[in-house]
């Protein structure tokens, strides 16, 4: 894997992203900031972080990278295809599968009462 892509994958991977220290720093920053959102928003963000980080953990690396670059970073599929030097249809396929799994996770969490409908 090319060095720059490895670096991005490493950041997207759970071990790097979800270190306890980083997470605590983020939320501490939110709470103490002069423009801190209210507590409800902090809780909502933390809920989203836990849910999505856990979801990303469960994805295979190719899907995780595409889902992250598309739905977190906001790159278009052609941009991702260019960056990764992967066929655009492959990107579409990976993104479709990842989104399908994400929606399934949301439905499951909702049905179990872990996520507000």
């Amino acid at each position, binding site marked *: 894997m090319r060095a720059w892509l490895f670096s*991005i994958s490493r950041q997207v991977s759970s071990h790097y992203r979800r270190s306890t220290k980083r997470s605590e720093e983020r939320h501490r920053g939110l709470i103490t900031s002069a423009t801190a959102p209210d507590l409800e928003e902090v809780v909502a*963000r933390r809920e989203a972080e836990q849910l999505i980080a856990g979801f990303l953990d469960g994805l295979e690396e190719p899907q995780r990278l595409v889902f992250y670059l598309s739905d977190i970073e906001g*790159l278009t599929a052609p941009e991702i295809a260019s960056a990764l030097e992967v066929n*655009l249809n492959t990107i579409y396929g990976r993104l479709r599968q990842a989104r399908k799994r994400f929606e399934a996770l*949301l439905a499951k969490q909702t049905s179990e009462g872990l996520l507000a409908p």
Partner: protein
Amino acid sequence: MKPPSMPSIRARVLLDRYRSLDSLDAGNKARLGDVIRERVLRGDLPRFDVQPAPPNLPSSSIAERLWGSALAKVVLGLMVAGASSAVLYRLAAGPSHAPLEAPALSVGPASRVSGAGAPPPGLAAAAPDTSDAPEPPAPSTAWRPRVEKKSSPAATVGEPTIDEEVSLMNGAQAALRAGDAGRALSILNEHAKRFPAGKLATARQVTRMVALCQAGSPKQARAEAATFLARNPSSPFAERVRGICSSE
């Protein structure tokens, strides 16, 4: 293959919240932007699997009718690769269950452009063009992943797809590599008319600036660069645009 459908509203809300907490660091973002920019600007655009011909394909183009044939793709791909001496158009036979990969340069739009019969327009014609004004900026808090835009009535007739956009952009890049900035601008104008808010609209704008520089209109290129940067300050192309005409 069609792009996947958008996430649900609830998924978007969660993703937006998550995005506010986690994003690629500046170094990785810059590197990613550089890689995309370099590849787009040198015409190394994403390739596509062979797709069956659309059901309502216009019958005016023999090339388009041939497009559904894998054999035609091989032949046309070799013609493209040979003619341009580019290594960008790779033909690779996959396993039997996988489709043959097509060259990035689709014959449909390219043939329409090259077959127009008009001489390559000079800069005088291209310079006053304003059809390619950069799109308005998206609010920073907006859901960034692009929603598949509904095709306009005009666009629906010809069933334009992303591969047509790629084909036009490849044509423009090929013209630039050949030193024909006027033709590149003509093709970019064609792209702007057909896909004003296309997926490659940003790449088109940057490519147009490069073409203007190459054609000896740095003043206009820089003016468009300033507009672009004002509207897209965090674009992956921003750094490249800031240095527009410095190396062309």
